[in-house]
């Protein structure tokens, strides 16, 4: 076991151990930023991050103190016993019985989180997407094995948090255990407000300003690339799209002056950034993997968009469950229709 730990404060009222393949760090995605925002409201707790070192740990977490423990990855099925041993060592080193927050997103996470349920009854699994349904699509033995491990982990957890109501409903049927809470990204009540709607006319010199925020991944790419093609094909369309995120878009997406990458955003001030725009863009790609992986998710960016009072243009497969809410809430136009395209004719990314 490799360890890289900082000192634990002497005076602490409770301990919380977060289990995830990436270290507790705000640069590791929107889900982790959401988790951090809640952990920051447990001021008496000492937080411990147990991870596999998948991404760099920059120490950016906004919490008073976090200690980190990096585990060496182990091979299934002996991994479970090894992780139990490591977690018991950690548990024994703490001055009180910790709560374990299980934040799984990979097969290694699932094993580590199952181990935690063997170490303590004070476990809470928090699921941000239905990743388990898309794991090992072409390896049925492994797929069944890890689904069984996940099922055990989910059922054994003392508490369960789902990211969306559709996920809570489906998991209750699939695994026979109700979620205790549906919880995702949220904003303080005083921060939820919008700017007055624009009354000045849209022109080429003062176009409709559309914004997208997020980590640029294949899940989101195709509609943004399509947006770019529409802009190129319609040079007189008075619309611009700005992208914000830690990752730049894929090659060929930017349309100079009309579809631009504006760099990383600061999560604490993102609502102020969004309020400078007329409309927000929510996208999901139409490929099978995205439709499976994201089907039950609830995007943090959508919480940001509506909390800033923006209309939302949605471009997504209709079977992503959040589209039900989007349609019922009437917050802007939606594009659900796909079109078939030859892979080679469109892009190398298929």
């Amino acid at each position, binding site marked *: 076991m490799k360890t890289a730990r900082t000192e634990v404060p002497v005076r602490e009222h409770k301990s919380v151990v977060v289990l995830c393949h990436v270290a507790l760090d705000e640069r590791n995605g929107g889900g982790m930023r959401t988790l951090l925002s809640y952990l920051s*409201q447990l001021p008496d707790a000492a937080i411990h991050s147990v991870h596999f070192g998948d991404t760099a740990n920059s120490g950016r977490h906004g919490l008073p103190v976090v200690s980190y423990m990096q585990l060496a990855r182990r091979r299934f099925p002996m991994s479970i016993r090894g992780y139990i041993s490591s977690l018991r060592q950690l548990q024994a080193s703490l001055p009180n019985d910790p709560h374990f927050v299980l934040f799984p997103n990979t097969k290694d996470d699932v094993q580590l989180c199952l181990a935690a349920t063997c170490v303590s009854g004070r476990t809470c699994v928090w699921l941000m997407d239905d990743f388990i349904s898309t794991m090992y699509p072409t390896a049925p033995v492994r797929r069944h094995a890890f689904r069984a491990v996940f099922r055990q982990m989910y059922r054994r957890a003392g508490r369960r948090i789902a990211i969306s109501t559709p996920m809570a409903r489906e998991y209750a049927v699939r695994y026979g255990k109700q979620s205790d809470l549906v*919880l995702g990204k949220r904003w303080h009540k005083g921060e939820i*407000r919008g700017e007055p*709607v624009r009354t000045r006319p849209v022109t080429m010199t003062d176009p409709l300003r559309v914004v997208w925020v997020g980590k640029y991944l294949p899940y989101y790419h195709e*509609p943004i690339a399509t947006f770019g093609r529409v802009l190129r094909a319609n040079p007189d369309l008075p619309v611009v799209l700005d992208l914000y995120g830690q990752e730049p878009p894929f090659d060929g997406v930017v349309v100079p002056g009309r579809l631009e990458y504006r760099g990383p955003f600061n999560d604490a001030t993102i609502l102020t950034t969004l309020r400078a725009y007329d409309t927000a863009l929510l996208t999901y790609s139409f490929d099978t993997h995205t439709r499976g992986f994201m089907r039950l998710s609830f995007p943090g960016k959508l919480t940001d968009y509506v909390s800033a009072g923006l*209309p939302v243009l949605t*471009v997504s497969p209709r079977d992503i469950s959040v589209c039900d809410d989007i349609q019922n809430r009437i917050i*802007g136009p939606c594009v659900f229709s796909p079109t078939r395209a030859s892979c080679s004719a*469109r892009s190398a990314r298929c």
Partner: protein
Amino acid sequence: MRLLPNESELLGALSALLDASVEKRETWRRNSLAWAESEFVFEDGLRRFRELFN
């Protein structure tokens, strides 16, 4: 073959945004904020989150 968003439908949606009246945009704005205020208030989630740790 793969599925991509329909370009003509996206162009139609952008046109709908450009042509929307102030009243229509105000409705979208109000609906967005109403959704946020009903389901995405941090204080509400935090109370229930804390309950899980007690």
